[in-house]
């Protein structure tokens, strides 16, 4: 066992996969000699060489298109978006090419797109976005969003070994803030499986990524101050959703709060709420509640950013309202 930060766990996952499979390579802006904007790939160039750690031109479309092409002929590229915000410039490559290839051509597209995501870092409107919902609507993609070092490494390894385009949302807020125990050597976390982070029979709180940590804090406050027991579920994979775990959690508690950092309207929480309404309605004791960021760009000033993004206080309040319903 080793204690590792979230960002080092991501790097470790890539490193081990590059050691075990020569078809895995990295491509992105500033990832080689500089080691990446967040230093995720520091040391990779020295170990794996410039054929497998490619400093690309500044072009998300070229990075994502080239990764798609390489994947179609059997390589396993890991493409880095410097910030999840910049994936807009390569959106077409993901949704038009990568996502549709297997359906049309019956050829696997084993590629991973890394997307440093989210706010709480005073990055302003162009370095703080949560962009996962844009891709959630696209058949052919998989989406993961780990909340901790163990899952980050295990999901990275699963994503690289998967035969489909996997969007790997990693949370900048967690990069060096969250540390965890990681077993030595090879292990994977399966795609499509959520995890119960905390048991509780009164309310189910479904979340992923950065807000998992706020959710756990809020659940502890509710237990301590209100005697309310909250089951906290980390979804881990967003596409495909772990429908079984979502429905089981709704049925077991009868009250559901969905929390995500991304803004509310058109967010993944809406689909989860619809799934529960469709298939667990008769088990509900209250309307399904959703909590997300305000429907604004993520603002720059700390006072504004705090007002826009979800936090522990807001989750506590939503849980109390739900408990009282």
């Amino acid at each position, binding site marked *: 066992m080793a204690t590792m930060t979230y960002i080092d766990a991501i790097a470790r996952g890539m490193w081990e996969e590059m050691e075990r499979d020569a078809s895995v390579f990295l491509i992105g802006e500033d990832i080689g000699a500089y080691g990446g904007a967040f230093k995720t790939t520091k040391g990779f160039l020295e170990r794996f060489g410039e054929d497998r750690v490619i400093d690309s*031109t500044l072009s998300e479309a070229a990075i994502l298109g080239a990764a*798609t*092409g390489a994947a179609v*002929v059997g390589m396993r590229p890991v493409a880095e978006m410097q910030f999840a915000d910049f994936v807009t410039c390569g959106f*077409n*490559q993901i949704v038009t090419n990568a996502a549709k290839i297997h359906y*049309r051509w*019956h050829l696997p*597209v084993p590629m991973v797109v890394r997307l440093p995501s989210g706010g709480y870092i005073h990055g302003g409107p162009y370095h703080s976005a949560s962009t996962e919902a844009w891709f959630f609507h696209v058949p052919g993609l998989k989406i993961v969003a780990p909340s901790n070092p163990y899952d980050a490494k295990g999901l990275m390894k699963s994503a690289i070994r998967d035969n489909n385009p996997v969007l790997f949302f990693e949370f900048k807020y967690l990069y060096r803030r969250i540390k965890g125990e990681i077993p030595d050597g090879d292990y994977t976390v399966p795609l499509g499986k959520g995890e119960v982070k905390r048991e509780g029979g009164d309310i189910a709180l479904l979340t992923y990524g950065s807000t998992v940590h706020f959710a756990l804090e809020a659940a502890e406050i509710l237990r301590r101050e209100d005697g309310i027991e909250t089951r906290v579920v980390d979804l881990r994979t967003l596409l495909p959703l772990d429908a079984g775990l979502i429905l089981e959690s709704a049925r077991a508690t009868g009250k559901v709060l969905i929390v995500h950092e991304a803004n509310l309207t058109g967010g993944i929480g809406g689909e989860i709420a619809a799934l529960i309404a469709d298939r667990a309605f008769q088990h509900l004791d209250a309307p399904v509640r959703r909590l997300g960021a305000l429907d604004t760009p993520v603002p720059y000033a700390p006072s504004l950013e705090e007002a826009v993004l979800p936090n522990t206080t807001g989750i506590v309040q939503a849980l109390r309202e739900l408990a009282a319903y």
Partner: protein
Amino acid sequence: MAATKMLAVPLPPSPSVTNAQKIELYYCMRLTRACDDAILRLYKQGQVVGGAYTGRGNEATAVGSAFALEDRDYLFPMHRDLGAHLVKGQTLRHIFLQQLARDGSLTRGRDGTGHYADPSLRIYGNVSHLAAMIPVAAGVALASRMRKEDAVVLNYIGEGGSNVGDFHEGLNMAAVMKLPLVLIIENNQFAYSTPARKQYAAAKLSDRAAGYGIPGVTIDGTDVMTVYAVCRTAIDRARKGGGPTLIESVTMRMHGHSASDDASYVPAALLQEWSRKDPVHTFERQLGKEGLLDPDKIAALQEKIAGEIEEAIAFALAQPLPPPGDAAEGVYAP
């Protein structure tokens, strides 16, 4: 409307083309045209249910360019490049299975026309967002070089599609990385209804190559021997590690954008002018002068082609449509 000016370019030393190869080139051009005509017939009969796109006027470019490829090379064609599919070895049965959306087609009815991939022939068809294929083609060139395959990727775009950002981003990356990619701009004067003069202000599109630090050349895309010679040189250069070449092949789209487009916006005089440069007839006359073709040989070839197409269409029409119960199958790879 003035056609793009073709500046005299020094042609490379002509690669030796045997008489047998010349006949093969002619056969492939004739086959391409006959296939296109058959697809239009099937469209008018209601058998082709979506769009029908022909390459009439583009046969020399499609056939001559693909003829310069080796088996191990990759083809990323467009919707006017049926001839390139055929030269690379695609069967007529698969062409018509695709056109007719049958269960046994290479996309199992999930996509139509040339939008298929056939890894055994190293053909990777286009998406409708044509320029989006350029970065993908660059990625295949990258992977191929990593694996030391000694292979080249040949990709095509139109004068319209050359204005999309992916053109710049893909070609620039390929140039910086010296990838084995050859990109042909088929300048056929119209992007749907929009004439070339409304698409770009450059004197010629190959001038753009200078911006990427790669060679660029504009050629007469109706002359199959020129197309072959220039592509052969560019492909050889790419194979030796010299990086990409941009080739503007000037042709004329002699049909509408698709079968539903009567192309009434194309001036009749322009069509007449280009009719005189019809690539199939031009090459036919040339081979006649060289003593390689005569009316009897041409008739025999036409008859052979008609029979081959008839067989393929009959085969494809006898196949079922894909079962609707399978519609959700194949979104994800196992």
